[in-house]
Structures are given as structure tokens and as C-alpha cells.
């Protein structure tokens, strides 16, 4: 498995770490956290180990990231050790090169710590640090229609970044961040459900699944709002969601309308949450953060704003190639809404084209895989020898983070 020199790509997200050898078809998705369960005393679940836990109610998270930046190194190193170790990748760091991703505008001291951990603690042969968006843009450039410019919209767990790229290079002064991500959406859903229906503040894990299962992005917000006020069969939006009890039901699901009457007597014991306007008003925060008094632009307005910051010659090319990545772009209707709103705000004579890749979460990992096969890849790495010779400065020079 670990041949003379293998190469690993690690897209180290705040929620999931995407890792795999450059020869793998798909990366492995590992939860970047340590979880503690109420039922399992004196045991911690690192990465995906929580899948073995029987009772996932009230799962408690230790997260390495805060507001999108690596802060809790103790947690992160435990997760990394788990990932590199026998249970997941079974790496031999001294014989391995690695591509690691970081958030945009990563803080200086975190960058220093990254170099130190990867060279001195794990002793990797060579490393290349970059932004996940850069890898996405690299892949976008290589694949048809091979546009020169690319507007990467990366909407992840901690925040959303809008980053214009020209020929694979980011336009640093036009990158903007919206402080709305999946974590905020889940917390908001938890909060409104706890106030309106059932106390679920402790159930981050379960409510995140509810969000993934039934939330969608509305393309006609106010009309949908009117539909949710209707009663009975006229309300086509409302869904009853059966919560897991971790006895009989391990995962929550949407209650089927048709079988509702037949299984009625059984339903008495089920815990049900009624999802009405919550279904679309939660993802709506990505488009209108001001709905919860966050004084920021939504994604479409931010795209238009950022394109306005670059040189005029580049603008039509960016409008033509908007690329959606990150977990939030999996909400049904996300792409259509971005396309519609950007079209409405963009100058008339520009074409607007929005692309949603098939797997937006692993898109940048695939970009990293492609990048590792590039001709100049070796030159862009820093080897352990170079690090020992020149220290942090060579990393600052070579890596464009």
C-alpha cells in the first residue's frame, strides 16, 4: 500500500476531513471531531467511530475548528492521528507527500503550527498547503468547457467564501466571506424548533439530519410562505418528521403521507416534528443573513459585489462560470436560486452560468488529485530537507494560502 513515495490529499474541512491517496477514485469522508455520548461512559468517539455507538441522543462535540479556523490543536491532532493511523489510511508519513487545505486568510500562527506539526511531529516527506477553493478552481480550469476565469462559491460548515480566480490564481483582494454556514443553519433550526415545538437544543446530530433531509431553498419565498399558512391538503410544504428514538428507529425519516392512516395506532409513541416554514426559512439565511439580524449580504448579492471588485475585462468571464462547492450547495433548489438572483442583479449583456458539480463536497479533493499530477507540482512542494534548511520562511514563500 505505501509504495516508495505515495501522495495523499487531505481537504481538512471544519466538519468533514476528505482524505485519500492520489490514486484513489474517491476520498474517505471523516468527521473532523471527537464525539461523546451520554450512553457510553469513559469512551470518546474519534472521527467516524460514533457510527458504532448505539445511542446517539445528546451527542456532544469537541470540534477542532472555531469560526472556520483551527484553534483546538489537541482535538485536531487526535483526529489526524486517527486518520493517518491503522484505522483509516495506514500511512507511513516519512514516505508520504501530502496536500493539505486551509481556509482563506488563515492566521499566521496557525500556518506556522501547521508546518511544525506536519514536518516535526508527523515527519512527512513533503507538503503542499493551499486553499480548498484553489484546488476547485484548478479542476474547473482543466475540465470542459475550460474557462479561464472561475468564481468559486464555497459554502461550508463555518462560513461561505466567494473567491474569484483567474487562470487558477485567486484574486486576493476580491475574496469575501459571509459568516453563514451549515453550523449556523443547524443551530438556528434547533433554536426555532425548541421554541415552537419540542426541546431539541441538545440534539445537534439529529437536527442536522433533519436539516439535510427536509430543508430546501425556495425559489419563490413569499408565495411559499403563504402556502405554509394553509391547512390540510392545500399545504403542500408541511412535512412530519419522525425523530429517532435509538431503540427501534436509528435514523429519523419523513413520515409518508399515504401510509399515515394505516400505521396510525403505531404512531402514537413516535416523536414527531412538524416542519412547515422551517423547511425553507432556514436555508434562506444563506441568501438573506439579515433575516436573523446578521448585517451581511446574501450569496447572490455577494457574488455580484465581488465581481464588481475585479477588473472590468474579467467580469463577463466570471459571470459565465460560477462554481458552487461545499455542503450547503446540496440543498435542493440552491443552484436555481443562485442562478435566478444573480441573473436579476447582473448587467443584462452578461451571460450568467452557474454550475453545481455532481459531488460538491469532494470537488476540491478531486481538484487536489488532479493537481498532484501536474507537471510543476514537485516544485510547489516543500520537502522536509528544505524545511530543515530554511525553516518557516520557505513555506511562506512557496505556499499561496
Amino acid at each position, binding site marked *: 500500500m505505501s509504495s516508495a513515495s505515495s501522495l495523499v490529499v487531505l481537504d481538512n474541512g471544519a466538519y468533514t476531513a476528505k482524505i485519500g491517496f492520489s490514486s484513489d477514485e474517491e476520498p474517505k469522508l471523516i468527521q473532523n471531531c471527537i464525539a461523546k455520548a451520554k450512553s457510553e*461512559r469513559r469512551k470518546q468517539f474519534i472521527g467516524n467511530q460514533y457510527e458504532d455507538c448505539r445511542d446517539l441522543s445528546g451527542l456532544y462535540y469537541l470540534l477542532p475548528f472555531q469560526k472556520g479556523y483551527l484553534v483546538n490543536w489537541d482535538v485536531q491532532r487526535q483526529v489526524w492521528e486517527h486518520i493517518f493511523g491503522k484505522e483509516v489510511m495506514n500511512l507511513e508519513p516519512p514516505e508520504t507527500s501530502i496536500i493539505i487545505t486551509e481556509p482563506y486568510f488563515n492566521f499566521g500562527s496557525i500556518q506556522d503550527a501547521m508546518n511544525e506539526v506536519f514536518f516535526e511531529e508527523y515527519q512527512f516527506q513533503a507538503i503542499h498547503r493551499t486553499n480548498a477553493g484553489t484546488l476547485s478552481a484548478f479542476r474547473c480550469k482543466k475540465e470542459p468547457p475550460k474557462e479561464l476565469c472561475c468564481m468559486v462559491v464555497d459554502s461550508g460548515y463555518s462560513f461561505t467564501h466567494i473567491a474569484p480566480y483567474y487562470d487558477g490564481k485567486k484574486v486576493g483582494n476580491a475574496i469575501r466571506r459571509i459568516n453563514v454556514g451549515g453550523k449556523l443553519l443547524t443551530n438556528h433550526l434547533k433554536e426555532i424548533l425548541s421554541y415552537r415545538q419540542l426541546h431539541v437544543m*441538545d440534539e445537534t446530530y439529529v437536527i442536522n439530519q433533519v436539516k439535510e433531509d427536509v430543508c430546501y431553498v425556495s425559489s419563490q419565498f413569499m408565495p411559499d410562505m403563504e402556502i405554509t399558512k394553509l391547512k390540510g391538503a392545500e399545504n403542500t410544504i408541511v412535512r412530519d418528521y419522525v425523530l429517532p428514538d435509538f431503540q427501534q428507529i436509528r435514523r429519523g425519516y419523513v413520515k409518508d403521507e399515504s401510509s399515515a392512516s394505516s400505521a396510525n395506532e403505531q404512531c402514537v409513541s413516535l416523536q414527531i416534528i412538524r416542519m412547515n416554514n422551517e423547511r425553507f426559512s432556514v436555508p434562506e439565511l444563506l441568501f438573506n443573513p*439579515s433575516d436573523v439580524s446578521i448585517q451581511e449580504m446574501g450569496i447572490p448579492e455577494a457574488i455580484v459585489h465581488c465581481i464588481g471588485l475585479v477588473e472590468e475585462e474579467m467580469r463577463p468571464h466570471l459571470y459565465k462560470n460560477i462554481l458552487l462547492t461545499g455542503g450547503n450547495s446540496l440543498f435542493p433548489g440552491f443552484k436555481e436560486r443562485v442562478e435566478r438572483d444573480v441573473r436579476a442583479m447582473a448587467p443584462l449583456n452578461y451571460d450568467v452560468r452557474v454550475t453545481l458539480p455532481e459531488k460538491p463536497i469532494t470537488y476540491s479533493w478531486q481538484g487536489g488529485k488532479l493537481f498532484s499530477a501536474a507537471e510543476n507540482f514537485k516544485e510547489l512542494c516543500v520537502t522536509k530537507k528544505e524545511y530543515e534548511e530554511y525553516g518557516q520562511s520557505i513555506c511562506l514563500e512557496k505556499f499561496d494560502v
Partner: protein
Amino acid sequence: MVMAEAKTKQGSSRLKDANSRKILDQYSRAKRLRKQLEALEQDNFQEDPHIHLNTPNKKLPQFDADEGAPTKKKRKTTRGDHFKQRFRKTFASLVEEEQMSLKEPPNYMTACIPQSKFPARKFCSVCGNPSNYTCVTCGSRYCCVRCLGTHQDTRCLKWTA
């Protein structure tokens, strides 16, 4: 005289009620909003389920350990502590450090997206429907008398989150 007093009392009961109600000033409203937004960033709402467990104290003397082991162990922990001290920084201190470092513009602070050009929409704090009214006391939004009642009974001036 008594009659007249009673009458004025009756006539102004609503006004009096409104006057006697405490009205939150803008600072406490802003503070409340900040708390709400901070709650949206929290990792966990509940406390650590293992916090009350008595984890076996590793510093208890181990009588069966041989003589050479303790020194070796000590060196290892100091190495870890060194790492922790240099890199253990909270998010706030990282931002502060960045502000002090005077790096050229594109950095964490300048990358924040500005406020939207469009006016904020208002939604009922109780049911989430579009709302037209503001609670006089605390500034929350509501959409109908029923929701106002719920709001006053639960959250108005009783914010606990």
C-alpha cells in the same frame, strides 16, 4: 370624588399599563441580539456528559513502576506542553494578533462582506411568518395578537438562551 377617581383610573388603564411596562433601552437590546448571535455559533448547548465522571487520576503513584520510567514520561509531557503554550490561542486572540501585525490589506478583517443594500425583512419571532408589528417592550417582531401573547408569556424580558 371617589367616583371620578375610579372613572379616570378605568379610562386610562391601558395607557397606564403601557407606561408602567418596562421598555428595554437600545444597549440591552443590542446585548440581547449579540447573545442570540453568539448562541448560533455554539458547538454544543448541553454540558459535557462526561464532566461529572471521575476519571482515574493518572498522577497517583504507581508502585509497580520501575525506577527509570518516571523521568522518561516527564520529558514527553513537557514536549507536549511546549506545543500547547505556543499555539494555544483563542479565536479572539488570533484576530487581535492579526490586527496588530499590520499585514497588507487582504486579510481576515477586510474579507468580511459588507451590509446588504436591500432592507432587512421582518419575521415573527414566534411563528416565523412575515410580521408587521414590533413589541414595544423589547423590540422583537410579531405578526398577530396570538403571537404577541405567546411572546409576552415566554420570551419578552425573559430571554434565557
